[in-house]
């Protein structure tokens, strides 16, 4: 038996003595004046005691039951020893069997935490009581006509004993300490006494007519204190009833009726108390699990946000507050896209990296895991957000180190591309020369069949076509390069290019001004690629001013939102503007106005911009400088883009 509050040996001795005393004491309460009450006592509290003992202490206590019954029967009830022993054996066997059945088959929880436990106890107790009453029948000396009535009376008496005594003992003996009674407990007890007084004192002549009033204090106590209070109240009411019966003589048949009403009241009260207890326990368990969950969530090092089905943030934990820079109250009710843009809650679960937007509009690289929780009435999204800025910073530092070394190479990327292109073109060009010169020599020789010469010329033409193909492919390669677009603020995008260009500007005494509005939407681009575009344009602007020795030496880098899909960036210089002859060929490869240029820079820049879905154009008024403008898609761009 798992739950056995009576186990230790010394306590077992105490139990044996205490139990015997209680058994004898309870038996003596049933000794009514046989003249007034010829049908015997209205209840049998000893059965309740026996069942409680066997349940709490185990069926090993069965001999004690027999012994105590023998003592009580012999000493108090003046029965023969044989009959007394029979009484004890009957109780020990029947209630011992009931105990085994309850504990081993039905797995009764001895703390009666669930309503189900109380119901099982009552049901099995009722059946056992029926058996016990049947066994005890032969000991009664009643007229044949009264046999059924007597049986029912014995049965009800047993049940009442169980209802009143067993739960009370199970709940109170198992208790670790005796709670101190407070004033309210006294009032409660007094209310029972008061109702009993109404019944038996004030309205003694009305007999038990107001007895049902007892239900009110019993219900009140059951609701307030649950099963424990209910069981105590029943015991109290029963004791009060016994006293009242002693004080106020009753007609015998009234006592039987009283006993049945008491039984009904007791069962009702017990079940109500049990239901209340169960509710209280499950509510406490719920509260415990909530508290536990809250503790976990609030202690979590990662930000945890719950988002309702409209996308509004429902809650955020302290780590989330710190991470996003919002107080929980500020964030609640906001749309999650304000802080976690670019996420789609339609396809959950989601796990990946993204940028969170903090309260100060700073971007924070985060790792996000979002899952869905289907509540009873709606769907809740739970987002766990981890700050990975540290990791990103480390990565960035490593890259920066790398970038310092690679910087020179990056600035001359157009030359590199031009070299590669030249190599590609030189192959077919060499072949063209070979074929045409060979054809020429064969023609001059005169003896060669014409078909061979024509073949050579055809092959030369094919190679010329190949040259065009290479140009086209190169352009395609540039525009289908490995783009890795990510949302970024225009200011951040521009700053790296500025950083690269500034030394040259300073050295040539040219001012580089920046005009980037702070409320620009995020753009979604490959920062490294767009950086090349910016570096290229900034270098061109600088070269234009320096080569023309312009009196005004300034370059303005500005940005503006065209609409919700596009941001336009402009690099405007104070140079001489673009010569008419070159303006319309400006973006084709190998076109340059520089003495040492390859004519690849703008060609590549335009290709990169077009790869992002944007466009590049130039505004130029001779004498007033040139402005190169290009568009970049915003992070919220819903146009089709081909990367």
């Amino acid at each position, binding site marked *: 038996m798992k739950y056995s509050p009576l186990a230790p040996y010394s306590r077992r001795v105490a139990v044996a003595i205490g139990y015997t005393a209680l058994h004898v004491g309870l038996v003596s309460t049933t000794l009514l004046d046989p003249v007034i009450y010829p049908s015997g006592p209205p209840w049998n509290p000893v059965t309740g005691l026996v069942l409680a003992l066997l349940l709490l202490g185990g069926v090993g206590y069965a001999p004690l039951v027999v012994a105590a019954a023998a003592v009580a029967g012999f000493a108090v009830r003046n029965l023969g020893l044989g009959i007394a022993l029979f009484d004890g054996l009957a109780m020990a066997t029947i209630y011992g069997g009931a105990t085994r059945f309850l504990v081993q088959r039905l797995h009764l929880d001895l703390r009666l935490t669930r309503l189900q436990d109380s119901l099982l106890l009552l049901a099995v107790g009722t059946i056992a009581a029926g058996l016990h009453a049947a066994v005890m029948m032969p000991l009664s000396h009643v007229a044949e006509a009264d046999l059924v009535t007597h049986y029912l009376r014995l049965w009800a008496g047993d049940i009442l004993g169980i209802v009143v005594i067993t739960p009370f003992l199970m709940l109170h003996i198992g208790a670790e300490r005796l709670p101190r009674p407070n004033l309210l407990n006294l009032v409660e007890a007094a209310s029972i006494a008061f109702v009993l007084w109404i019944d038996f004192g004030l309205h003694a002549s009305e007999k038990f007519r107001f007895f049902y009033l007892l239900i009110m204090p019993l219900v009140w106590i059951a609701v307030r204190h649950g099963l424990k209070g209910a069981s105590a109240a029943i015991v109290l009411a029963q004791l009060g009833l016994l006293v009242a019966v002693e004080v106020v003589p009753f007609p015998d048949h009234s006592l039987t009726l009283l006993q049945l009403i008491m039984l009904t009241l007791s069962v009702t009260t017990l079940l109500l108390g049990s239901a209340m207890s169960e509710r209280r326990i499950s509510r406490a368990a719920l509260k415990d699990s909530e508290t536990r969950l809250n503790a976990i969530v609030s202690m979590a090092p990662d930000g945890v946000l719950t988002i309702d089905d409209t996308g509004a943030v429902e809650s955020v934990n302290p780590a989330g507050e710190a991470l996003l820079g919002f107080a929980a109250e500020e964030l609640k009710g906001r749309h999650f896209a304000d802080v976690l843009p670019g996420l789609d809650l339609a396809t959950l679960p989601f796990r990946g990296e993204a940028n969170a937007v903090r309260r100060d509009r700073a971007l924070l690289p985060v790792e996000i895991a979002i899952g869905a929780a289907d509540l009873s009435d709606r769907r809740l999204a739970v987002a766990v957000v981890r700050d990975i800025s540290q990791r990103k910073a480390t990565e960035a530092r490593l890259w920066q180190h790398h970038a310092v070394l690679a910087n020179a190479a990056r600035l001359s990327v157009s030359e590199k591309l031009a*070299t590669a292109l*030249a*190599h*590609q073109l*030189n*192959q*077919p*060009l*060499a*072949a*063209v*020369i*070979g*074929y045409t*010169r*060979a*054809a020429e*020599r*064969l023609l001059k*020789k005169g003896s*060669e069949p014409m078909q061979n010469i024509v073949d*050579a010329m055809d*092959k*030369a033409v*094919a*190679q010329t076509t*190949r040259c065009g193909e290479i140009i086209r492919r190169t352009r395609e390669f540039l525009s289908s390069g490995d783009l890795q677009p990510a949302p970024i603020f225009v200011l951040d995008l521009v700053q790296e290019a500025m950083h690269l260009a500034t030394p040259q500007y300073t050295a040539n005494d040219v001012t580089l001004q920046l005009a980037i509005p702070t409320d620009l939407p995020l753009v979604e681009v490959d920062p490294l690629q767009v950086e090349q575009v910016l570096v290229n344009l900034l270098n061109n602007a600088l070269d234009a001013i320096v080569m023309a020795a312009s009196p005004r030496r300034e370059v303005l880098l500005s940005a503006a939102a065209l609409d919700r899909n596009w941001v336009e960036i402009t690099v405007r210089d104070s140079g001489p503007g673009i010569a008419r002859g070159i303006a319309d060929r400006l973006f084709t490869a190998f076109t340059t106005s520089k003495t040492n240029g390859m004519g690849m820079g703008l060609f590549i820049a335009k290709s990169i911009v077009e790869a992002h879905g944007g466009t590049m154009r130039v505004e130029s008024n001779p004498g007033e400088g040139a402005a190169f403008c290009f568009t970049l898609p915003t992070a919220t761009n819903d146009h089709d883009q081909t990367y």
Partner: protein
Amino acid sequence: MTKRTETKPTEPVVHIVDDDEAVRDSLRLLLYSVGIEAITYVSAADFLARCDCARPGCVIADVRMPGMSGLDLQKELLRRDVPLPVIIITAHGDTPMAVGALKAGACDFIEKPYDDQFLIDSVSHAIDRGARLWRDHERIAKARVDYETLTAREREVMALVVAGESSKGIAGHLGISPRTVEIHRARIMEKVHARGLADLVRMAHLLETPEE
């Protein structure tokens, strides 16, 4: 050494090694137009596998090819002692590479797109040089064969003769009679087909060329 006293060499052939089919084919046609026979190969490995190195000629190899580069091929031919001069062609020439190739023994270095006349001149020059290399190579091979027929004692005697020792001196060195030395000398001259001391010295010089 410019005297054409040896047997007339076989017709020269140009080996074109380039991974670009059009470049290979146009070069072959250009050389054909001036009456030079050419064989084309798609890679250095292809060339090494198929080349008939018994014919004189030269090699035109592209620097940048998948697998073995033109420069590596040139080194490999040197290592194998193949008497074919190499012309390196490239579509992306840079000075250090050209200098390096010429230092390593390349016959010429030509950038694509090339001037046809310049290329033809370069090839003709390489073929001449190849013919000389081929003749030298033939003679060395012959000398080696002859040398193999000498006995150990005869080789000792020959080394001392070439070093300028008199028969008497040689007899002293080897502890044999001057008469025996004279007999060895006559046998040596006969075996290596030398017409006099000068021939013997020239042959010894050829034999000093590293075998590998």
